[in-house]
């Protein structure tokens, strides 16, 4: 089976990694280099802690195990895969009560959660006086561009090819089934299936393939400090982050996520703005994130910000990724709309897409167990968008 994966970000690379491992004939098509889009604009989160029970958490649990497997093959050090654990802290007793209830619901579906009374035992430099938190030992981090490049290289070792070009249109054959993709320079890549792993541009690629899905950009800034000696051990964030991730508010939201990296820099997120693809600098966001980080870790007041970057999270209207075959154009399989969770969900998505292509479970991914992510949820019976 010939498969064209549109998109060489972390999700496309993971799809290629699994599909090539399953023996499929894979070509990855992207207009730019590996991981140059949203993949390079995040912190490299592999999180269970921020997900409520439901279809996304199920995929995240599968994906967490598959990250360990992929890490073994790629070399955990080469992709900076680190099971550092997450620490969610509450700033008020009420918030702590809500956090404990949230964690209990996660624990009921198999997430490891450890209530923490004295957060300073885990993070000695955190602000004093916080009422408590929850430790999530399964939360991990990876360097996303190295990971995407590593997954793609492993796919190439198994026979996958990488083609630089922009997908323009689908070539369809008998019964409207996909037969290939035409690129901007006129090249036609023959395919029995096309995977839409174009991230934030997945809506546009879907449209070009005749299978539109609604994928919207949600802008986020990340701050990077100067390299410091190791001081922050976990991925530390405030409990209101969970509320913001799930929020549908149109305005600016910031909630503090702070963590160290292997290189000594400290990453500070996360802001969410619905401003389309506007790339303009927003100094107020930078200031708000800095203020929140300083409240959580007062020693950061003296640390220098040396870089900030921003990217566009791809989200679906219901904040779940869209993964699976599109009934309107047989052969088109979507794998996009992961919002801020694409790095963590990538291997699970790659395995699930491969399972859909094979028509049977693959590496623990059973299409029958992830029906909540299918594009059908946006379609009426006539195949038109709702």
């Amino acid at each position, binding site marked *: 089976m010939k498969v064209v994966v549109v998109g060489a970000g972390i999700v496309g690379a993971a799809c290629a990694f699994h599909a090539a491992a399953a023996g499929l004939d894979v070509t990855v098509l992207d207009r730019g*280099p*590996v*991981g*140059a889009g949203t993949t*390079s604009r995040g912190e490299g989160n592999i999180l269970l802690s921020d997900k409520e029970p439901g279809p996304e958490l199920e995929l995240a649990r599968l994906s967490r195990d598959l990250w360990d497997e992929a890490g073994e093959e790629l070399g955990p050090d080469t992709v900076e895969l680190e099971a550092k654990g997450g620490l969610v802290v509450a700033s008020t007793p009420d918030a702590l009560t809500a956090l404990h209830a949230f964690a209990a619901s996660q624990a009921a579906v198999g997430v490891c959660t450890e209530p923490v009374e004295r957060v300073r035992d885990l993070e000695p430099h955190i602000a004093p006086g916080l009422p408590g938190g929850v430790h999530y030992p399964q939360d991990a981090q990876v360097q996303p*561009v*190295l990971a995407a*490049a590593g997954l793609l*290289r492993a796919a190439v070792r198994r026979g996958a090819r*990488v083609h630089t070009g922009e997908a323009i249109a689908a070539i369809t054959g008998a019964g409207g089934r996909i037969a290939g993709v035409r690129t901007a320079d006129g090249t036609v890549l023959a395919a029995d299936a096309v995977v839409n792993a174009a991230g934030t541009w997945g809506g546009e690629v879907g449209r070009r393939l005749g299978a539109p899905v609604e994928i919207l950009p949600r802008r986020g800034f990340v*701050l990077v*400090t*100067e*390299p410091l000696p190791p001081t922050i051990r976990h991925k530390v964030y405030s409990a209101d982050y969970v509320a913001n991730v799930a929020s549908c508010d149109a305005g600016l939201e910031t909630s503090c996520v702070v963590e160290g990296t292997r*290189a000594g*820099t400290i990453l*500070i997120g996360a802001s969410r703005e619905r401003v389309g693809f506007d*790339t*303009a*600098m*927003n*100094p*107020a966001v*930078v*200031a*708000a994130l*800095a*203020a929140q*980080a*300083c409240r959580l870790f007062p020693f*950061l*007041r*003296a*640390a*220098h*910000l*040396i*870089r*900030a*970057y*921003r990217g566009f999270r791809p989200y679906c209207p219901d904040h779940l990724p869209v993964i699976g075959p599109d009934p309107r154009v047989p052969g088109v399989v979507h794998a996009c709309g992961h919002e801020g969770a694409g790095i963590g969900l990538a291997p699970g998505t790659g395995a699930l897409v491969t399972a859909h292509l094979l028509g049977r479970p693959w590496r623990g991914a059973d299409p029958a167990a992830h029906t909540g992510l299918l594009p059908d949820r946006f379609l009426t019976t006539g195949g038109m968008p709702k």
Partner: protein
Amino acid sequence: MSASGDLVVVGAGPAGMAAAATALDGGLRVLLVDSGAALGGQFWRHPPQQARHAIPTADLHHGLPTYRALCATLSAHARTGRLTLLLNHHVWTTAREGDGFAVHAMDRSRAPEETAVVLRAPALLVATGAYDRQLPFPGWDLPGVLTIGGLQSLLKGGGVAAGRRVVLGGTGPFLLPVAAALAARGAEVVAVCEAAAPSAWLRHPVPLLRNPAKWVEAARYAGTLARHRVPVRTRTAIVGAEGDGRVAMVRVASLDADGSTLPGTERRIEADTVGVGWGFVPQLDLLIPLGCDLADAGDGTMAAAVDDGQRTGVPGLYAAGETCGVGGAVLAVSEGAIAAVSVLTDLRSPGRPNVRRLAAKHAAVARHRAFARAMAQAHPLPTAWSSWLTDDTLVCRCEEVTAGAVRAASADGSASDHRQVKQLTRAGMGWCQGRMCGPAVHCLVARDQPYAPAERLIATPATLGGLAGLDESTTDHV
């Protein structure tokens, strides 16, 4: 703290001073901001006010009458309150706000304390100059190896000759004044290694003939160098530095037309200090995030694209001086004045300037730009400079990334530009954010195109505490 006016000028060097003076004379309220402690920028850098009498530096400068006249004009306007001069203010970002701009600075006059300051105006002129272009070579990270610009700022800012036995290398006319100044301050300049061939200038007779002042200047340096017996070796480069914990020896070699070292020509010279400069890179960090278009400057770098009134393509945003391509202080002064006239025109200010003087400025700009283009062609980067590197030569000093790692990232097809190399190797991710190694990494992976720096949303490091102060002050107002 916040302030507003008609025009914010970032950079108080020759271009920024001239622009501010012209705009003020035309009746505008101007905010002039600079990271330095005094007016003048790098070109007219001076010792701290209280030490100026003790450290004579007049002989190191050019165009001091212009500098003094601009200082006097600006002081007069500061007294009337129409000029707000913000020294020791580091601009860390700029943003569009309505029809104008918000310029965000950190006041470091009481360093290490930092106070966030926001300056607002409908017009913004970026005159942030340029900085030394460095090419790595084995040993360039040893203490004692400096940039040519660094040596010059020690001379101008403190009257200090940074070494006793100095070798200079690189390319471009800037090597000569630094060599002459070091020699005049008592350093032994053992060699000046100029990679270009002097005959290259003969291909550009017209710009040379139309800029006689440059001849006079060159003759003055030649005289000084001859008096101090400083040998200038052309088609020669510093290809290595050695020493135990500090530079003690440099290796120099003759170059063929391609820039490869000629076998058998390498020799070793004892030196305690090395100065290197390969021309300059325009400082575009504030311009790129605002959407300013770039143009090929002809010297292997990209510069701000401006019209003949120094307008960028972004309404209300102007650039002057080295940000528009490296060309020297006389050019920068003319461009600054022209930019201010454009601001006066665009803001419909009644204070219109004298048309005849403006025509003369445009003519001066054309003449100096032609000279700069000829200079760039006469002093190119040697094509084969990367052949001087070994695989273990550091390219990115902040993150300790070697030439071998950069080459490997580009060889397997993963990286085709310096941004992608950064993602895969960390070259350019450290303290300097690729300002030092960016041009070199670019040359290693994509040498045929001019260097366009990566977008940097944070133009200079700022403490999180200082930034948090900005948030806290905004929250207070609400």
